[in-house]
């Protein structure tokens, strides 16, 4: 029966515009039921379901009818072919077996690069992983986004799991806690929700700043937190700022978050940034020369995610081109990302830039003035417009005082020749090109 849906898909792909097909039809999953002669189509969410019902259901039904000779009926509902995500009401044994507690195994203490900015946070995290519920409870790691808080949190979970594989560890974002709670309230299973979160050995909650303003969630988390601490189970939290500074967070929570050890992570210094890059490259089995690591570290002073993004680009480009990673190569590979801002290049800003460069008025570029001090910049601006925009010769001519397209063609030809023959023209052109595209 699924082959009937495949046939229907082929037909629908021809009948429905490509974008609409990709958005609304392709995500539908088909479940066959041979005995009931039925196809159940599963939409990923209510939004898609409602849209498909309103706009495409008749067409889909007609297509299924056509290819099954009217033998098959169609149902449309929200769902997924894959097993549903575990809910808090699932049995613990099932969760244990199939839910990998959302820990990312790649984040360990071994591959966390230590520097002055994070050494206290790392040391405290190791302490906690070796003495759960005893060392610092709760452990609160705070600092700006992208500095390694989540890495340490996962590392704690992984280290605990290594020492005690039977430990129940749950890692989640605060927002997921809120979502699970709302779902539990809707499904009338709030007690299962409470039992689940209050029964774990280690609870790792990321980005608690998102609890701000969510009073019911804060209330529930307050009790979960108290129960875990009473049982001497470990709580680890991360936050983008010191909790006392969070607006919309209850005072009693702010106070409790400060009970254990709050440690901050600061942005890494340049040496640490370079070391992070070298470590990440090593994990990707890539040889990254030290000078390249320092080059990237100098250019990206912000956070570890930005560093990783830049390194990804360099590695991807090196793998595709087969070129050796050098500083020169890295400059090229990161050229677009390192530009402070991506200017929108259009004829207007080409004219403005050229006029400023040659110290003439923008209006001169569109005037009938034929002095060389004006015609040369005008030709250069036309040539740059041809090179940097998608406009046609006639469109460029129009933008320069309604000139004929052949004038633009001649200007481009003339500048190309002059760049070869006259060093000054080549230099001016190159300066302008750099100013406009960097």
């Amino acid at each position, binding site marked *: 029966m699924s082959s009937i849906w495949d046939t229907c898909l082929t037909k629908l792909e*021809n009948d429905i*515009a*490509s*974008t609409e097909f*990709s*958005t609304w039809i*392709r*995500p539908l*999953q088909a479940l066959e039921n041979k005995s009931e002669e039925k196809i159940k189509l599963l939409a*990923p*969410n*209510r*939004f*898609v379901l409602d849209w498909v019902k309103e706009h495409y259901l008749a067409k889909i039904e007609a297509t299924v009818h056509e290819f099954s000779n009217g033998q098959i009926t169609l149902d449309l509902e*929200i769902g*997924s*072919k*894959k097993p549903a*995500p575990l809910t808090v009401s699932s049995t613990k044994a099932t969760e244990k077996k199939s839910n990998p507690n*959302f820990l*990312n195994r790649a984040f360990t203490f071994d591959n966390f690069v230590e520097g002055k900015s994070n050494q206290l946070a790392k040391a405290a995290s190791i302490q906690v992983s070796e003495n759960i519920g005893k060392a610092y409870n709760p452990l609160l790691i705070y600092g*700006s*986004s*992208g500095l390694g808080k989540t890495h340490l949190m996962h590392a704690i979970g992984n280290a605990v799991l290594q020492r005690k594989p039977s430990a129940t560890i749950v890692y989640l*974002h605060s*927002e*997921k806690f809120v*979502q699970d709670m709302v779902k539990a309230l809707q499904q009338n299973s709030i007690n299962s929700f409470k039992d689940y979160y209050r029964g774990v050995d280690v609870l790792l909650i990321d*980005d608690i700043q*998102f609890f701000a303003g969510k009073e019911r969630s804060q209330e529930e988390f307050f009790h979960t937190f108290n129960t875990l601490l009473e049982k001497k189970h470990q709580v680890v939290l991360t936050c*983008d700022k010191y909790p006392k500074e969070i607006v919309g967070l209850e005072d009693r929570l702010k106070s409790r978050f400060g009970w254990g050890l709050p440690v901050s992570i600061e942005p890494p210094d340049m040496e640490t940034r370079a070391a992070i890059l070298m470590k990440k490259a090593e994990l990707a089995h890539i040889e990254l020369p030290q000078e390249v690591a320092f080059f990237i570290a100098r250019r990206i002073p*912000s*956070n570890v*995610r*930005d560093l*990783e*993004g830049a390194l*990804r*680009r360099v590695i*991807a*480009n090196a793998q*595709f*081109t087969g070129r050796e990673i050098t500083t020169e190569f890295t400059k090229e590979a990161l050229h*677009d*990302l390192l*530009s402070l*801002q*991506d200017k929108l290049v259009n004829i207007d800003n080409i004219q403005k830039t050229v006029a400023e460069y040659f110290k003439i008025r923008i209006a001169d570029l569109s005037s009938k003035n034929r002095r060389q001090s004006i015609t040369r910049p005008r030709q250069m601006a036309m040539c740059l417009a041809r090179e940097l925009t*998608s*406009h*046609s*010769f*006639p*469109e460029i001519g129009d933008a320069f005082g309604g000139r004929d*397209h052949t004038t633009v*063609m001649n200007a481009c030809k003339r500048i190309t020749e002059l760049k070869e023959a006259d060093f000054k023209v080549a230099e001016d052109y190159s300066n302008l090109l750099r100013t406009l595209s960097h």
Partner: protein
Amino acid sequence: MAQQLPLQFEFRANQTFADFYSGSNQEIIDHLQHCVTGSGEAFIFVWGMPGQGKSHLLQACCHHAQKQELRSFYFDLASPSLPDPSLLSGLDECEVVCLDNIELISGNAAWELAFFNFFNQHRDQGHKLIVSASCSPGSLAIQLPDLKTRLNWGLALKLKMLSDDDRIAALIFKADQLGFEIAPQTGRFLLSHYHRNPQSLWTLLEKLNLASLAAKRKLTVPFLKTILEQDTHDA
């Protein structure tokens, strides 16, 4: 002799990788294909000027995912207007999610938060995310710092503008897909006299194909001039 009326049909270019003229953008296609099949990056950020083919590539990713029997979802945030963020609900179950024009969520607090949560949950499940924008991730005016760093985290790939030679080759390639031939000098003429944005060129190509069918004539430069003149006159 009466002019033959061509069969009216709506042009539906298949949005697959095979239908994309890559030119100097082959690297992007390779990374996208590897991402979808699971042998590459988990998150790719494709950016470039409008009309370079970002939407085509994102839809090609979904097509590729479908071939691998993976559940995919494509959505263009530009059409017709930014929907309710509940659009993202449940999408973390989709193995491949492609969101076009992600820059449009910048400054919309509800969308930024919803996308941040979706990003985390989708990533936690090991699924693949591909987004597109008209500017680099670092230039997005995203207000939520946690989301901004996450968007910078992925593999950012810039679609390069096609050179004029590439545009001519692309015209020939696209014309071939439509079932007619276009000579290089005809392509050169088009580039000199028409807007060179690829999207405008593909639209023009459709018109030319219909006109060529109607007149039963090959697309020579003189014939092209007649069509373009007619087009300008009609406009």
